[in-house]
Structure formats: C-alpha cells, structure tokens
C-alpha cells in the first residue's frame, strides 16, 4: 500500500470506474507503463509531454516524414520550382507562429524552441539567444541537404515574421542557419501593431 494525495486518488477512482477497472488495476497499469518507458530511458512524464506535443503537431496538420525522403523530395521540388517552394515554407512558418498566438502563446518563438527539444532530433545543435528585443538563432545539422537548409531557413523566416520580428541578419549554408532579428510587434487584423 502506498499513500497518495486524496484528491488524485479520488479522480483516479473515477477514471477507473469509467474504464470498468478497479483503482488497484489502474494504478498497476500506470506503474507498468512507467517501468516500461523508464527501460527506454525516459520518465512517464517525459513520454506524456511528448504525446501532448505530438497531439499538438497533429492538430496543426503536421506529418512525420523520414528525413532522407524529405531531403530528396525537397531537392526535387526546389529544383523544379524554387520560388514557389520557398514561399510555401515561409507561409507555413507564418501560419505556425500565428497559430501559437491565437492560442494565447505570448512567445511563439519560445513555443517553437520547446517543440524543437522534443522533435528536433535531426538538428545537431540549436540556440535561441535573446537580448532585450533582439534574438539570435543558430541552427546546425550536417545531415541537412543544401536545398532543405534553404527551405528550413524560409520556414524560420516565416515563424519570425509571424511572431512580429524583423530580420536584420541571415546567413545560410548547407546544414547551417544563422538569423538575427528584432521584435517590432505583431500586426493585428486591422493592420495596427500589437507589441
């Protein structure tokens, strides 16, 4: 027998009842889940956080594509129509930023940085350095193809734009992106500025 907070135990009893289980079997199920994910090297909380972010990505109409496939497909698309490809990646970045904002996120870039921690597996290193109204982003991944790096840069430009930043510096090389920007405020629907 283990002692648990009464309010939590009561809520769990309700969930157990909904699923036709006893509290005993539900708690055991939980423990087994925690043990299994711990064997994979993470805590249950980390697994649940990852699931929550995955659901958010799902709601935002993202899909998972194997990276080699994405790089090769991006290369072909870029070669066939580079301006249109850049535009759609840029627009996607703007949309993602605006989505964070409409959900009440005060710092869309911070939200994106948080998602990178869970999903940015293929990025060797990234930094988001803030100083007052300025931000400096550095992203490195030797795995990225040249064209994919350019497209991802366009996506980041879109996120910055949608988050109310003006880009002051941008350097792109294969697998390497550097961006500096200053916050100017997000444009409202009526064309005004909201800092």
């Amino acid at each position, binding site marked *: 027998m283990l002692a648990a*907070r009464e309010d939590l135990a009561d809520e769990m009893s309700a969930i157990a009842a909904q699923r036709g289980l006893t509290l005993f079997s539900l708690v055991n199920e939980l423990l087994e889940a925690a043990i299994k994910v711990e064997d994979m090297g993470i805590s249950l909380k980390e697994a649940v956080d990852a699931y929550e972010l*995955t659901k958010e990505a799902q709601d935002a109409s993202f899909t998972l594509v194997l990276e080699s496939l994405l790089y090769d497909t991006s290369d072909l698309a870029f070669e066939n129509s580079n301006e249109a490809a850049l535009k759609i990646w840029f627009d996607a970045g703007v949309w993602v930023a605006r989505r964070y904002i409409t959900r009440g996120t005060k710092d869309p870039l911070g939200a994106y940085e948080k998602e990178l921690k869970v999903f940015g597996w293929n990025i060797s290193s990234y930094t988001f350095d803030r100083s007052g109204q300025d931000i400096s982003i550095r992203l490195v991944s030797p795995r990225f193809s040249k064209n994919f790096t350019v497209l991802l840069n366009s996506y980041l430009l879109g996120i910055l734009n949608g988050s109310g930043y003006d880009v002051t510096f941008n350097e792109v090389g294969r697998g390497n992106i550097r961006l500096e920007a200053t916050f100017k405020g997000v444009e409202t629907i009526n064309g005004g500025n909201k800092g």
Partner: protein
Amino acid sequence: MAVTKGKKLVSVSEDLLDAAAKVSREEGVSMGKLVEILLEQALKINKLKYRSDEMADFFDVLQTNRVLGGLFVPTDVLDFMLDKCQVNSSQLQNLWLESGRWTGKYLTEKFDDPLTAFGRFLKLTRWDLNEVDVKHVGNIAKIQCVSTVMSLESTAMLAKFVEGALAGIGYKMTSTDSLKGMLIMTFKR
C-alpha cells in the same frame, strides 16, 4: 489558512514494487512522490483521451521514428512538394519505395510483430489518415488507409511507401486499389 491535502492508501501489486522502487531511485524521488507524479500523469493522459497502457507503445513508435530520422513537416508543404516533384517520375517513386523498404526492415529487426508495429507507425506519423487498418491472416496481409484530406500525389507516394515497407517485412504486393485519399493493398508472404 493553510489546507493540508489528505492522503489515501492505494494498493499496488507486490511484484511491481521492486521495479517501481528502481524507477523512484532513477527519478530521485520517494515512492510516495512517484505515485503522486504517476497519478498526475494519468489524469493528464486521460484528458488527452489516451490510455496509460498505450503510452509505452506510443513512445516506442516515436523512438522508432527518431531512429529512422522522422521529421515533422506541415502536411500541405509535403503535398506541395510532391505536386512539384511530379509523382509519375520513377525517381520519386523509387525514393518512397526504398524508404518504405528500409522502414520495414528496421521494424522487422526491432519488433516481434512488425506488421502491427507498422500499423502503429502509420497511425502515429500520418495524421492525415482518418483510418488505418492492418490485418493479417496466415500469409496474407491487407492494409487499408482512408483520408478525407490526402491529395492524389500524397496517396500515390504513401502507396509506394507501404509497398516498400511490406517488402521490407517480407511480403509481396498482390493487388492495390488507390484513389485520392484511399488505399487498399493486399500482400502475400
């Protein structure tokens, strides 16, 4: 006035206690605190309309994606790129086929039931799919995918990926029916 939350005793299975104690040591918390954390996570899982017994499987598939190098991309960006790539090109079709094959081979090495794992893999990665159904009876496997939003190009490339994955698992395609947003494919071992 401070309010002290009451405690309730919760029974756990004895054979799980040792393993649970190990988890609590690894997380640097007492057993009591571990139980509290787990209960809080269970409430969160319930709010997300998921189940705790599915959490390990979910993370297993997510880790598989990580190993295989899955990247999140907006679905309409993917559709656009497939459109610009001209899906009739054999180069593009081969890319998706080979990527599927590699995935199937990896799933075969990692999972006892790679077909079921592939079904979970598709459900996790392709949220544009409303329905994923993987059935296997004897040496016959049938894969059915339905989507109300998938483009024709995306459907075609998914078909190639599925064909490759099943080949990697050891199945050969015997029939395929592919329309915009719908795939019905049959395979034989």
